[in-house]
């Protein structure tokens, strides 16, 4: 997977990003999409202790929560970058929420969804070099000196 690193924050170039909400989308061959939190999101949250996704079958509009996570007394939503129905939940997160910290783009995915308006919503996301540029600006704006990675993180 081709990627860029900005201040130790990893940005794979083949994913699509909702930059403001720090989520990514991977397009799957079966027409579904996989959704997760970015490396920057896991850094900002710190070690994630709990993660609970909405169940399979849940219909979500873009921007609505598909999961809730807790890290160090902070609880927050993972907002859906697309509209659609959740088809699968990453069950591993229930027992090991820090998978999101260790492997935000691989093992720590949050849900898979059947999108309803993907073409239009992808236009509102960024990918490739455009994503790298958008995150470079965001990292500067949010004053992120270096993304932290906990023990056992994916190596890039």
């Amino acid at each position: 997977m081709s990627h860029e690193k900005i201040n130790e924050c990893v940005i794979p170039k083949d994913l699509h990003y909702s930059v403001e909400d720090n989520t990514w989308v991977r397009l799957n061959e079966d027409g579904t999409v996989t959704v997760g939190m970015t490396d920057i999101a896991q850094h900002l949250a710190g070690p994630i202790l709990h993660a609970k996704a909405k169940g399979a079958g849940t219909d979500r509009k873009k921007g609505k929560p598909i999961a809730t996570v807790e890290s160090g007394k902070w609880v927050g939503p993972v907002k859906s970058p697309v509209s659609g129905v959740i088809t699968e939940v990453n069950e591993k997160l229930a027992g090991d929420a820090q998978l999101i910290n260790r492997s935000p783009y691989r093992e720590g995915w949050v849900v898979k969804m059947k999108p309803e308006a993907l073409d239009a919503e992808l236009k509102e996301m960024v990918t490739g070099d455009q994503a790298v540029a958008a995150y470079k600006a965001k990292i500067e704006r949010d004053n992120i000196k270096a993304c932290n990675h906990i023990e056992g993180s994916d190596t890039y």
Partner: protein
Amino acid sequence: MPIRWIDAGTVSDLRSQSIYHGLGYAQERRTPDTIVLATPESPYLCVGHFQDPARELDLEFCRKSGLPVIRRETGGGTVLIDSGQLFVQWVFQRESLPRKVEQRFETFIKPIVETYSFFGIDAKLYPVNDIHVNGRKICGTGAGTIGEAEVVTGNFLFDFDTEKMVQALNLPGEVFREQTRESLNKYLTTFGKEKRSQPDRKEVIEVYMAQCRKVLGRDFFDGNLTEKESKEMELIEEKWREEAGHFIPLSRPEERLLKIHAGVWIGQMKHAARGGFIESVIRMNENRIEFIKLKADAGNATAKDWNGLETSLTGAVLEREQLSDRLAKYFSSHREQGGFHIDDWVEALLRIRNEKKRVTGRE
């Protein structure tokens, strides 16, 4: 943009929680950042978003004692909130606070620390989000994204009802309960304990406001709740009332891990070892054993108690090598190991530290 300051005064138990939830859900782009101060008129128990009230609390005791139980939408653990506390709530626009959670807590905690300092209390940030005075906790915090708002809450402790808290918790047994009582008395402090007399709340509020102004570098204006915010508060109160009706009491747990503050934990673990079990109640401070009570049964055990071993282990750091050394030294002069290998004992004792790491993500 100036910060809206709402001194809600004394409010109902539910309202002391619903204010910041309502403000969060009602927040729009033009809503000013808001700081709320409130004190509940009566006590209640409040659990974190990911906690199960039945596992945390003796719901039967709470019901008989008329103590409402609320599950808030922010993080953290179980707290008793009553009229001895001044509840501080920040409900801000997302971009008004640092994006990293750890830094957000630092910003929030600073004016509280400075306020305690003003009153002669040597309060300091204890990472990540506690405030301590010489190893004793004097403020708890919680945070969350509610609606579009970023919320951080904490409290000034004037007084604390240790006994009520001890009775309200769902704990495995009396050894654990007594340790909880002792630990709360030892590791939790208040204005009253530190200064013998409590300062005037009005004065605390004035000092706190001045410190917030200094830390945030912004002006304040006295504000009120909007109709939309009040409506959201009523909705969440209704939801909590309904939810409370579905909390079903659970029996006493066999195992339990309880945080007294970020450095001090009490745990009871029942470890299945070869041929039996080893049960331990341990209080650890910075991973060092401060108190330990052991029970072990391999079917052929002859030891009636483990007082000698408990004394030998007190003060040990909960790490494999040190525990192995202490156990080996003890059993070299005491033949009875309860039918267990030293490795069994080590694994049993390490369970509390491993469990703490699992639930906190930190060593």
